[in-house]
């Protein structure tokens, strides 16, 4: 990246950040090479934690916490396309797509695992000199805004395991079944921040690990959470947890429960100022 370009990005990032602080609802579109990203302005938001939670050994809904985010988040406007992913394959940095994924080049890449998405992020970062990675679940929910689906069951803790089980089944049964047919970017619409196709029929990998956490009667954590990073949080029309090498969620489920229709991803970019400074050091 040239010095002039760097200076531009530093400036743009700074302006965007200050704009973001000034207006909680405003978002900005930025282009980094051909990467179309949205800058979601900082705000405080309510977050339903991801993972399995229990009170005295009885499963309960995950707690709600308020996160006050102070920095903007730069996130890809749309999901990574098959054509983009294939450039990483050509560069021999990503595994080839599944022969079962017959998507056209301009459609979202699907049948990709967390490992595939992570390899792509690494390649893209090396190529652009910017730090791209999968969002954490908190970041995904922050950028999804009104497109986040809360899967809480609002069922009290019980020693009868069938109650939550049937409640979850009831909730899943009421969901509309989305077909698996891939659609061009934008077909599922934009959210209030200009991010496209959230919670359409392509679910997205996040970087967050699956955690188990015990809670006290006031829903405060008791003891340390146990994290399993072989299983990652996947977001979309419903939240789910999948083993990191799974490419087709329909093959990763159990006897009941609806798996995601398709698995894809989009990336977020680490703070611009930090990246710019790091790049300047690298340039010397």
């Amino acid at each position, binding site marked *: 990246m040239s010095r002039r370009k760097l200076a531009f990005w530093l400036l743009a990032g700074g302006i965007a950040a200050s704009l973001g602080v000034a207006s909680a609802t405003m978002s900005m579109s930025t282009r980094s090479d051909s990467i179309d990203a949205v800058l979601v302005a900082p705000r405080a938001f309510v977050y339903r934690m991801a993972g399995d939670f229990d009170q005295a*050994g009885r499963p309960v809904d995950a707690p709600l916490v308020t996160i006050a985010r102070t920095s903007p988040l730069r996130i890809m406007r749309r999901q990574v396309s098959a054509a983009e992913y294939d450039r990483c394959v050509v560069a021999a940095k990503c595994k080839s797509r599944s022969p079962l994924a017959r998507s056209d080049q301009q459609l979202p890449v699907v049948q990709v695992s967390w490992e595939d998405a992570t390899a792509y992020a690494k390649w893209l970062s090396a190529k652009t000199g910017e730090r791209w990675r999968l969002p954490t679940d908190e970041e995904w929910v922050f950028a999804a805004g009104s497109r986040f689906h809360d899967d809480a069951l609002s069922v009290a803790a019980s020693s009868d395991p069938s109650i939550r089980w049937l409640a979850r089944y009831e909730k899943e049964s009421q969901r509309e079944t989305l*077909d698996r047919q891939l659609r061009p970017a934008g077909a599922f619409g934009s959210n209030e921040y200009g991010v496209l196709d959230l919670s359409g029929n392509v679910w997205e990998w996040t970087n967050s690990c699956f955690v188990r956490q015990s809670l006290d009667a006031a829903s405060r954590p008791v003891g340390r959470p146990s994290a399993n990073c072989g299983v990652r949080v996947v977001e979309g029309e419903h939240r789910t947890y999948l083993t990191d090498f799974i490419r087709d969620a329909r093959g990763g489920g159990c006897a009941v429960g609806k798996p995601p229709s398709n698995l894809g991803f989009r990336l977020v970019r680490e703070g611009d100022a930090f990246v710019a400074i790091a790049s300047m050091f690298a340039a010397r």
Partner: protein
Amino acid sequence: MKLSIWIVLALCALTLASTPAQAEADLKLPRERVTLVAPPFVHPHEQATKSGPKIIEFTMTVVEKPMVIDEAGTKIFGTTFNGSIPGPLMVVHEGDYVELTLINPAINTLMHNIDFHASTGALGGGGLTQVNPGEQVTLRWKATRAGVFIYHCAPGGSMIPLHVVSGGMSGAVMVLPRDGLKDEAGRRLHYDRVYYIGENDFYVPRDAKGNFESFAEASDYFPKTLELMRKLVPTHVVFEGRVGALTGKDALRAKVGETVLIVHSQANRDSRPHLIGGHGDYVWETGKFHNPPLRDQETWFIRGGSAGAALYTFRQPGLYVYLSHNLIEAVELGASAHFKVDGQWNDDLMKQVGAPQPIPSATALQAKPK
């Protein structure tokens, strides 16, 4: 000469010999008219009866129409009894007479008939029931054997698999002993609910891209489907005609303490029903009620071309999966149904003694491979 030609000739001879359908009062027995309902439900009926033999009148209309068989909207050319796959379950008692009027509306394109495995003679009635579009026929047969039995269309030649298998044209009859179901010691068995599950294997051709093909004309669909069927590898194995027909909003229901009779038919291919989290308390694997039922079954077997029956009393609430325990067929091809069971959990039967938690460190170290 090919077997199929012999079958056609036999059918023709029988048709010539038969007299035109007419409502004769040649049998002096009380009559009862029953309205059929679409599976998985079953029309109201007595389990044991004190009444003498009757003539039970049923009417079925053949409906030719496209049927969606999976979530992607894949369609088959449905040839159906009464518009459902499978056709409705007919319940009578041993010694009763089944009197079926089969209607083939003029809007249809194909000749149809019906072969009752429970009946005796004339290719199960197939030879006496051939109706062209715009015709109807009435057949009466005596229920001399107790059990659950398949019925299906059998028009002759390759049209048999095309109608029965690729078109879903089969159903079942349940002939109950007059004094009801009994266990191996002759003690009465009773059910609170009965569900009829018809299983079908479908063979849908794919286009050059690998997607399921949709056809405008049956004349294009039939040869390609037949070619695929001859390889014997189904693209779909489903209950009640489509993937997910008995799950989610359409899941079967029961309560703890209720006894459910599950009638399962497969007109073409073997299947192995299993109830995840439950059992078959009493199973008539071959479906014939004068044989003692098997007790406490884990997985049972439905021979292709037959129906079986399993009786189970639910003892625990929750979700149960009733599937073909060929798990590839159940999960990948569709042969799964769900039971939603309400009631009180019984800790004595099952309890999670310790919730999932990290393995204590000392144990974890021991468990590590060297």
